[in-house]
């Protein structure tokens, strides 16, 4: 079963990350690299991507003529996806265990962040009854 593990952030939260002391950032990145390596070796890692910071996010809608209307203004409390993992695991419990590992990634001075990670099943296609 495939699950997606989503790391969300508020705009203010992600803006703070680059201001960590350099060695704390390095320790955080090293932790993430080790976790990814471990999941690759266990054959559970399907994909992992980091996204650009929220200040580069644009909201796009089709105008009346179908042309894109872009907007960079978001509600103050909006959560932004910072990055995600897709894992292929035997049980939901295993997906939650991996999420807990990511949650405990080190922050400033190595203290675990205990950040929330949203976990959802990935559907490999639309539900069968919807496909014509």
């Amino acid at each position: 079963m495939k699950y997606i593990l989503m790391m969300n952030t508020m705009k203010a939260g992600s803006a703070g990350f680059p201001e960590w002391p350099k060695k704390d950032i390095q320790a955080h990145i090293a932790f993430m690299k080790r976790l990814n390596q471990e999941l690759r070796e266990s054959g559970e890692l399907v994909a992992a991507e980091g996204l650009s910071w929220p200040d580069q996010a644009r909201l796009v809608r089709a105008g009346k003529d179908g042309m894109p209307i872009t907007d960079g203004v978001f509600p103050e409390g909006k959560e932004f996806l910072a990055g995600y993992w897709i894992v292929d695991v035997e049980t939901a419990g295993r997906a939650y265990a991996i999420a807990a590992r990511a949650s405990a990634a080190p922050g400033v001075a190595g203290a675990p962040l205990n950040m929330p990670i949203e976990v959802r099943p990935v559907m490999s296609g639309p539900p069968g009854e919807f496909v014509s």
Partner: protein
Amino acid sequence: MKYILLMAGTKAGVDTYRAWSQSDVQAHFAFLKGLNRELSESGELVANEPLAGPEQAKVVRAGNNGAPITDGVFPEAKEFLLGYWIVDVESPERAYDIAARLSAGPGPGGVPTNMPIEVRQIMSRRTDELP
């Protein structure tokens, strides 16, 4: 340049969608299939994943002992990611064009949904680029 196109909605929004007639849902999926085929043929489609509904979402935190603490309760206004596309394109404008195509996908009665699509660049080598 790789961009991710995020389709998100609240739980209430998802419930509205679930009330669409079957023919409207079929028309919407036929539209998405057509668009995916076009992006595959142009070599721009990297990945596309639909996610399970918000009622299957859990938020997980590490407890003090590192064991997972799971919770399924979310704020009413929370936006849930419903699905995403990753495209590899020459310019941000091309990513915005594709997002507008998605936004113009047919809703009930074939009327374009004009739903907002969030567009962000993917940093595939972020972990190596940071100090």
